[in-house]
């Protein structure tokens, strides 16, 4: 945890912070303040330039996000009070964040370090399908992702069933599902020879009881792993989430703050999403004690973030955070298309390209908007991570990234609303060997060669 020294002072504010009716919080507190800072700092979306190289704009977004977080804070729906911090407390938390943390254990441990804009340091690569999967495929999918060469950390698919029974949140079945989830994951990591790899686990736990039940350094989620704790959209929390913060702090594992500001929702347009991403990052640091933030801004209608109205805030917020903070933050891609389609490869490549050049680490890939069971594979995530490594190593500039992003957008943007769902994992992977089918691999290779032709210099 990055702010244990303030744990109880901050928790106390959930009890005695300024009160507000929940129905009033978003329309009367959050939205007016967001509008005010967008105007005050002159933030304007430019659809022609999904990757702007405007450092003054990035700094203004940083200041707007800071002001939004400081003045709005985080609303606790259980106590109807807002947790707020002062400028001094935010500065203190930023100072106390080391900018780098060892995650994972033994030979598999990785030093996760803050990245700068146009940094040649390769991004931290967190692989995650983000979808649910069938019980009988869970272990195979864990194996398949853990076989990925560039994997620095892994967040496994979510179980819907355990022992043939539907998992219901906050019930005994959830605890059983969480246990099954982590055992599958541990076994898969051991079998592929990565026993200490960094996990973000367990996604099957929706309730705090499920999450807490698998904290165990021998067989469960270790203190070298991470839990991801969500913020309710927008800028709300609840005791069940705060319980996890206290548990993680006392257990000693890492925390990531999960946020999904909605384009078209209370954040409004691209400008609001960019400002919210910065504010959420400060929230994660200060209130959740997160060492990293996991952001998945998404489109209200499509549930994706690979079109330009989402790439722009990702690019701008990344630059704001990269230039002004030591924080760690992953950019979580949500594609419209599903596995084994050309479109999902283009979307993932574009998302990873834009994110990497603007200082993000990568969290790929929620294929088919993570809506459908079994509809994600490691191969689309692989192409994203390979793009991230390539463009970092070659020192790609924002201008160059913008040109390639425009070419890629031209290939898929018009199909965002009715994208192909693609195949399920078991249709394009061999479940026994946890390897892609030849047809799937050939498609990946063909798109990778095409990307190389656009100027992305892959090392292999």
């Amino acid at each position: 945890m990055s702010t244990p020294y303030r744990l109880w002072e901050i928790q106390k504010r959930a009890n005695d912070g300024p009160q507000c009716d929940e129905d009033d919080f978003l329309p009367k507190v959050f939205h007016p303040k967001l509008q005010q800072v967008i105007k005050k700092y002159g933030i304007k979306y430019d659809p022609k330039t999904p990757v702007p190289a405007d450092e003054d704009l990035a700094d203004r977004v940083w200041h707007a996000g800071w002001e939004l977080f400081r003045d709005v804070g985080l609303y606790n729906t259980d106590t109807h009070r807002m947790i707020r911090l002062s400028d001094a407390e935010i500065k203190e938390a930023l100072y106390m964040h080391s900018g780098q943390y060892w995650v994972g254990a033994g030979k598999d441990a990785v030093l996760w370090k803050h990245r700068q804009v146009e940094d040649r340091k390769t991004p931290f690569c967190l692989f995650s399908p983000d979808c649910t999967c069938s019980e009988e495929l869970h272990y195979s999918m864990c194996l398949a992702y853990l076989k990925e060469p560039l994997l620095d950390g892994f967040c496994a698919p979510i179980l819907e069933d355990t022992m043939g029974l539907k998992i219901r949140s906050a019930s005994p079945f959830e605890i059983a599902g969480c246990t099954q989830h982590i055992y599958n994951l541990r076994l898969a990591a051991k079998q592929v020879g990565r026993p200490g790899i960094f996990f973000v686990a367990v996604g099957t736990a929706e309730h705090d009881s499920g999450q807490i039940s698998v904290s165990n350094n021998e067989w469960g989620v270790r203190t070298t792993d991470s839990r991801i704790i969500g913020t309710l959209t927008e800028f709300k929390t609840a005791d069940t989430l705060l319980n996890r913060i206290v548990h993680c702090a006392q257990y000693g594992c890492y925390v990531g703050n999960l946020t999904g500001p909605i384009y078209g929702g209370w954040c409004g347009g691209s400008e609001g999403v960019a400002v919210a991403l910065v504010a959420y990052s400060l929230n994660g640091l200060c209130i959740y004690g997160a060492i990293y933030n996991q952001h998945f801004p998404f489109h209200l209608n499509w549930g994706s973030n690979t079109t330009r109205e989402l790439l722009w805030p990702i690019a701008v917020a990344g630059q704001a955070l990269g230039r002004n903070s030591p924080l760690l933050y992953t950019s979580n891609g949500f594609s419209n298309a599903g596995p084994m389609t050309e479109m999902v490869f283009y979307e993932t490549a574009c998302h990873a390209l834009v994110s990497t050049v603007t200082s993000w680490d990568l969290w790929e890939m929620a294929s088919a908007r993570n809506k459908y069971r079994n509809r994600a594979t490691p191969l689309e995530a692989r192409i994203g991570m390979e793009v991230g490594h390539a463009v970092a190593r070659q020192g790609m500039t924002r201008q160059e990234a913008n040109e390639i992003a425009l070419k890629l957008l031209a290939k898929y943007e018009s199909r965002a609303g009715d994208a192909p769902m693609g195949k399920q994992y078991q249709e394009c992977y061999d479940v026994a060997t946890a390897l892609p089918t030849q047809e799937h691999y050939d498609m990946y290779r063909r798109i990778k060669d095409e990307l190389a032709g656009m100027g992305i210099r892959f090392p292999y």
Partner: protein
Amino acid sequence: MSIEKLCQAVENGVQDEAEQIAKDLLNQTFDAKETIDRLLATMQKVGDRFARLEIFLPEMMQAGQAMAAAMRILGPTLSQSAAAAQVAKKGKVVLGTVKGDLHEIGKNIVKLMLETTGFEVKDLGYDVDPLNFIKEAETTGADFIAASALMTTTMPHQKEIIDLLKDRGLRSKYKVVIGGAPTTQEWADKIGADLYCYDAGSAPKLMAKLLGKK
């Protein structure tokens, strides 16, 4: 002051102005049916613009609030008119996000879309026990039970509502509508829901159609 100006104030989401124009209208002779028809048409227009994201949720909400404010003032007069009887409510809906799920933005958008297109909505909020959906539907004489879920592990609570209705011999009494990011038509079919709404914008038309209304 005219109905046209009232509609404009609603479309712009200016609540104070809508209230003032509505008060002024009360002092004039005005056509109740035309007023209702045009206000509903205005909200349909606003809803269509929101569906295309030409405007965003806050603007949509503001328009809805302006509409509600105007109706609070005009309501007593309108309800006495013969016209009001012709514009009967399209249906009563008990709406909520299921137990264990704290997400309600999608549910709130559905609520707004339904209310502004002629449905009467009882919003139970989020983290709603399956039995409470049914008790509230019984109390209010609802036509629909509409349950939203944003997490895969809370989706089973949508099924629980249907199972409880069956066990209580009430299944045929209510149309059960489900929605939420992880839900699909396949899930709706599997649990025996009457209707799956892919997004908030589709809800009013699909639900009206289910009751055989326009």
